């Protein structure tokens, strides 16, 4: 089960810049490591992260093997209106994780 966590302020003033922190539980197996018998461990990473604010994409990132395990991504956005922030992580082997956060803009 994909476990993810996001930190979004519950409320913000209109026009305020808010910081969003996201964390996904994932080993981010690089595909460069070998087992004790010398076989390569196949790559298994999160390849893309998208954040949508009321359905509009505000941030997107392409991830590679050089991301640490349990990738943390922190970014900012302007609080424009009350609504939902939707986060999506996609990756190898059909990995898909979703998370939603509500924000109240006053």
């Amino acid at each position, binding site marked *: 089960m994909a476990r993810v966590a996001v930190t979004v302020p519950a409320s913000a003033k209109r026009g305020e810049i808010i910081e969003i922190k996201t964390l996904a539980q994932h080993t981010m197996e690089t595909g460069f490591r070998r087992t004790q018998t010398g076989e390569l461990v196949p790559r298994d990473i999160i390849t893309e992260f998208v954040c949508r604010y009321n359905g509009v994409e505000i941030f997107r990132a392409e991830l590679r093997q050089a991301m640490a*395990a349990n990738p943390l991504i922190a970014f*900012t956005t302007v609080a424009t209106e009350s609504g939902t922030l939707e986060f999506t992580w996609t990756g190898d082997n059909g990995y898909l994780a979703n998370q939603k956060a509500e924000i109240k803009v006053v």
Partner: protein
Amino acid sequence: MTSRRQFLAIACGTVAAGQLYAQLDPNIQAKRKAALEAAIAKVVGDAPLREGKVKLDVPPLIDNGNTVPITVTVDSPMSASNHVKTIHLFTEKNPQPYVITAHLGPRAGRAMLSTRARIADTGRVIAIAELSDGTFWSDTVSVVVTLSACLEDGLI
């Protein structure tokens, strides 16, 4: 006088080291450098890459290369006409140079990206920002890594 046990330990160590070095590509440094240059060229194209505007925040001495906190900030008003479109992050000594590519826009408010990367070996970390006017700006930081990520790849 070498005891039987010591001899065995040395012999095993030598064989193991030999096997490790046999896996190593003698041109690995040159190949990594070429891969990094190719990756940067792919992003920048023919446009000139200038130093400045970008601030890359990485600890200069890294105890554990498996999780290295990296923060990139770009000096930009982030308005509709003048904002940061993309932030790219590269490392010099990893088996592949890419770390992350982040797409931002004027709605970001501030051009800031914070993440955690794996860094295989002492070397450079490079952040490149593409602005909405099509110019590219970069910042390079040299870091020292004591415990490397992906050690089994035989990078040292």
